[in-house]
């Protein structure tokens, strides 16, 4: 038996260690810069690439043969077909490692592997009709002396001609090209960043202002379409408002009386009735206020919309145009700096765009240049860590196969935090009721079993539920209000009148009142057990509350007074679509059973002697819960929170349905008011792994990143768990009474 049990644990350990080991090794080696080999093929062809894999060549039946083949990362996807190529080892005539070859990570189209040849500044100047072309002169530039050379005269945009000139800083000298590139690159990248910032941040800010003005017009239009509401007359309104205030005052007075006679059941019931009466009366006097009918007339609306239109035009002609001009100027300047990088065969250069194969690459297109064969070990380490830093801090590029995953990390962490902020209080309160307040009986057992079973429901079911309930139902209600509102007062027969909003609200209040009264009557006297009559009264009271809640939900869902918070933006949905808030709510629902079960166990584990001690000191039930039970249960609650976080952070299936996307243009938190944009869609590491591994156009290029992203996801989950475990151990130490 010893051997069997030991074998089982060994199998588990091996599985776990090999899993984590594989993830760590594969994930960590992704960014290590490999050496570039120039491969001469027996057929006479030449290619340059980084060897990433080698295996026995499979024969036609798929079995491994004697021959071997090697996988080269050749890059240059915009001129070649594939970024990775299998080469039979037998077909290789020889390999060298040219020291001037380099790996260039570009902003688009992935890496380029080649040798830099020339660096030049390209200028385009318009040539007026009949004007003599100016002499092309050698110049001294910021990057050293340059030799001028006219390339061509070509037709310009407005029918005129323009001259293209090149100022060669380096020509046909790889060594010098590397040095000049090294000096030029930081400037070019700064310029690029500035353009990006202008495009995204500044333009976005101005557009948002214009959008806000447009929305104000739209809101005014919608309000005038709805028309003025009649509301109550002044007389009826004063009666309703007076009754509301009266019942509030009565409730306050009864509360005072209750303080000195806390066991008086009639007083308690009367106070409940007062509170319940005050609610609809106050609501009515607010919703049906007679002075609420301020809607623009047609002329006012037209004038308002004209005024706003003028403002928008002013912004467009002023600030917006100014920004666009600045960007155009910067881009023109940026386009001047070019570098020619030729591929191994010497044929093609790295193009500026795929459509312009003869235009040399803009320097600012290069994110990082690695002279892979000429690096010392520390240089390699530097490249390695700078790649890691880029991975952690930058946005993704090239369909997520290049660049970083910062928005993905951000989305994952935010989602997990949000979900725990939602699920922990909800679960703890639910567990408290179940364990401390609810009468333990068959009903609570059923609820407990149901909660436990919820933990076993496949997560995609939660995703579908989240999409159907949160995104479509709740979200659309928030956006546009009720799609089918009840009339304030119904008409046509008793049933017809009842189906009005206010009659239904009154019915709801009456039922709630009867519920309060029944529960109060059902309370047993001191020292007596509940009689059968009391039990039935309590059941009817609970039923009344249930009916009341159902009617209240109907009242909210079909509220005629609410037109939605974002109706002006329709048909573009705001909350009525998938997004971060709904995703975290869905995951909160998914992890709720974990928290409830853990909390219930923790609460039950607080010793009876503690509770009795507290009651013996004259503490009320709530005081005992708050001061003794909850602190004692904190470690257990935190365990539940940790489990919930771990489960939530690793969940992918429901997220695919309720809001995780391949590429989110904006972070859910930014400097734009109201700063938290929980309606936005977001990126998530789990989904990112799936996307990279199975949806990517370039699966070979994406595969190392899959490992790295997996490593990252695992580390983030471990980190968050560690933080929670640290908190828990501190709480535990405090409870156990260790010194300090």
């Amino acid at each position: 038996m010893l051997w069997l049990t030991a074998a089982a644990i060994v199998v588990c350990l091996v599985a776990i260690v090999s899993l984590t080991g594989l993830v760590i090794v594969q994930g960590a080696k992704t960014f290590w810069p490999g050496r570039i080999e120039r491969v001469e093929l027996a057929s006479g062809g030449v290619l340059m690439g980084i060897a990433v894999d080698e295996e026995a060549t499979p024969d036609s039946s798929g079995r491994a043969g004697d021959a071997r083949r090697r996988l080269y990362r050749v890059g240059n996807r915009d001129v070649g077909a594939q970024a990775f190529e299998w080469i039979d080892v037998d077909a290789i005539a020889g390999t060298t490692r040219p020291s001037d070859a380099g790996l260039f990570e570009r902003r688009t189209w992935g890496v380029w592997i080649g040798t830099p040849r020339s660096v030049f500044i390209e200028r385009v100047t318009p040539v007026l009709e009949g004007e003599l072309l100016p002499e092309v002169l050698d110049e001294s530039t910021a990057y050293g002396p340059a030799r001028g050379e006219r390339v061509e005269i070509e037709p310009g945009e407005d029918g005129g001609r323009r001259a293209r000139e090149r100022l060669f800083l380096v020509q046909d000298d790889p060594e010098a090209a590397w040095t000049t590139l090294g000096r030029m690159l930081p400037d070019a990248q700064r310029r690029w960043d500035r353009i990006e910032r202008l495009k995204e941040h500044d333009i976005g800010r101005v557009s948002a202002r214009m959008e806000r003005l447009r929305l104000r017009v739209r809101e005014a239009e919608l309000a005038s379409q709805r028309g003025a509401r009649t509301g109550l007359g002044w007389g009826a309104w004063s009666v309703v408002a007076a009754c509301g205030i009266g019942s509030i005052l009565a409730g306050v007075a009864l509360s005072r009386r209750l303080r000195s006679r806390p066991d008086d059941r009639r007083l308690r019931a009367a106070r409940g009735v007062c509170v319940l009466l005050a609610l609809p009366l106050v609501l009515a006097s607010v919703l049906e206020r007679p002075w609420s009918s301020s809607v623009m007339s047609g002329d006012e609306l037209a004038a308002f919309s004209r005024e706003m239109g003028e403002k928008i035009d002013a912004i467009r002609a002023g600030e917006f145009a100014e920004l666009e001009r600045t960007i155009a100027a910067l881009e023109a300047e940026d386009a001047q700096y070019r570098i020619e990088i030729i591929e191994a065969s010497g044929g093609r250069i790295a193009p500026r765009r795929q459509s312009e194969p003869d235009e040399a690459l803009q320097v600012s297109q290069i994110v990082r240049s690695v002279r892979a064969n000429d690096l010392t070990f520390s240089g390699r380490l530097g490249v390695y860590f700078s790649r890691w830093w880029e991975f952690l801090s930058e946005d993704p590029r090239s369909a997520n196969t290049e660049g970083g995953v910062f928005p993905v990390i951000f989305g994952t962490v935010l989602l997990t935090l949000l979900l725990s902020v939602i699920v922990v209080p909800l679960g703890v309160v639910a567990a408290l009721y179940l364990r401390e307040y609810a009468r333990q009986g068959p009903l609570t057992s059923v609820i407990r079993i149901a909660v436990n079973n919820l933990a076993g429901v496949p997560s995609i079911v939660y995703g579908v539920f989240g999409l159907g309930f949160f995104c479509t139902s709740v979200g659309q209600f928030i956006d546009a209000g009720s799609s089918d509102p009840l009339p304030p007062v119904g008409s046509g027969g008793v049933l017809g009148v009842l189906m009005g909003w206010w009659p239904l609200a009154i019915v709801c209040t009456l039922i709630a009142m009867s519920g309060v009264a029944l529960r109060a009557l059902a309370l047993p006297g001191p020292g007596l057990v509940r009689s059968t009559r009391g039990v039935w009264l309590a059941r009817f009271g609970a039923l009344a509350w249930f009916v009341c809640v159902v009617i209240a939900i109907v009242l909210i869902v079909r509220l005629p007074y609410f037109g939605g918070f974002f109706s002006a933006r329709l048909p573009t949905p705001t909350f009525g679509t998938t997004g971060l808030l709904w995703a975290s709510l869905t995951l909160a629902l998914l992890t709720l059973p974990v928290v409830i079960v853990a909390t219930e166990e923790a609460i039950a584990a607080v010793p009876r002697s503690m509770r009795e001690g507290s009651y013996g000191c004259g503490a009320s039930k709530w005081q005992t819960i708050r001061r003794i039970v909850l602190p004692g249960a904190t470690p257990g609650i935190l365990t539940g929170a940790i489990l919930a976080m771990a489960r939530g952070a690793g969940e992918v299936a429901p997220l695919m349905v309720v809001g995780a996307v391949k590429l989110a243009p904006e972070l859910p938190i930014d400097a734009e008011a109201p700063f938290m944009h929980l309606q936005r869609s977001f990126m998530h590491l789990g989904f990112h792994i799936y996307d990279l591994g199975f949806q990517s156009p370039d699966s070979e290029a994406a595969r190392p990143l899959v490992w790295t992203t997996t490593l990252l996801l695992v580390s983030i989950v471990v980190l968050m768990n560690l933080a929670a475990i640290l908190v828990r151990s501190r709480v535990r130490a405090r409870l156990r009474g260790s010194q300090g």
Partner: protein
Amino acid sequence: MDATMSGTGRRRQAGILDDIREGRPVSPEIHERARSGDYVLEVRDFSLWYGSSRALHSVSIPVQRGKVTALIGPSGCGKSTLLRSVNRLNDLIDGVRIEGDMLLNGGSVYGRGVDVIDLRKRLGMVFQKPNPFPMSIFENVVYPLRVDGENRKGVLREACERSLRAAALWDEVKDRLQQSALGLSGGQQQRLCIARAVVADPEVLLLDEPCSALDPIATLRVEELIHEISSRYSVLIVTHNMQQAARVSDLTAFMYLGRLVEYGATEDLFQNPHLPETEQYITGRFG
């Protein structure tokens, strides 16, 4: 309770325990000296059921003010239940039903309109096992005041010192009031619980076998403490230990199977019990 009842008790003394076992009604033997004086707590025909099983049978005990009253009897005789009924801790148990009433300083304990929380604030209770809360020593002692809404630092500090001194614990813990109470030894913990029980000046102090989980030296100290505070408080103590009852109490009630058997001044009961069964129990011949 009156003279004729005690008379019948005396006539049927030979088989009183058998009578109890077979459920025949018996009347308790209450000494004259125990009936005189000023009652702080008066238990009147008090019965209690756990579900359908009856734990107390019409118990009537007058508890005298400023005295230590001990409840003794074999396990399961209902002495702890009686004690926990005084501050209505049994209300927390599902299916408990009572009949009869108690009067605390003349006011009903089980009447309609009694606020249980308020009632418990007027009583202090110490349990069998020390149960300090997982918080600092200071917070433990002032817990009853805190739940009563007292948050003034000065008042709390003063009350804490006073009751820790009363519990003879002040000198041992005065330098570490902010440290966890769980770091104290068992005996210290129990004295802390006593300090907690007396901090709000209870009308009656209820002690439920306060020494049964302590070693002999700690027991001795707690007993001394009970003796000391008995000058200030009325104490009702449940004990298993005959010597302890003899040492600390002024009056002793002997209970058996949910019924009061004999009640009297401690020296009378121990030296000259009216019933032979009491004598047998006290001398350890049964129970």
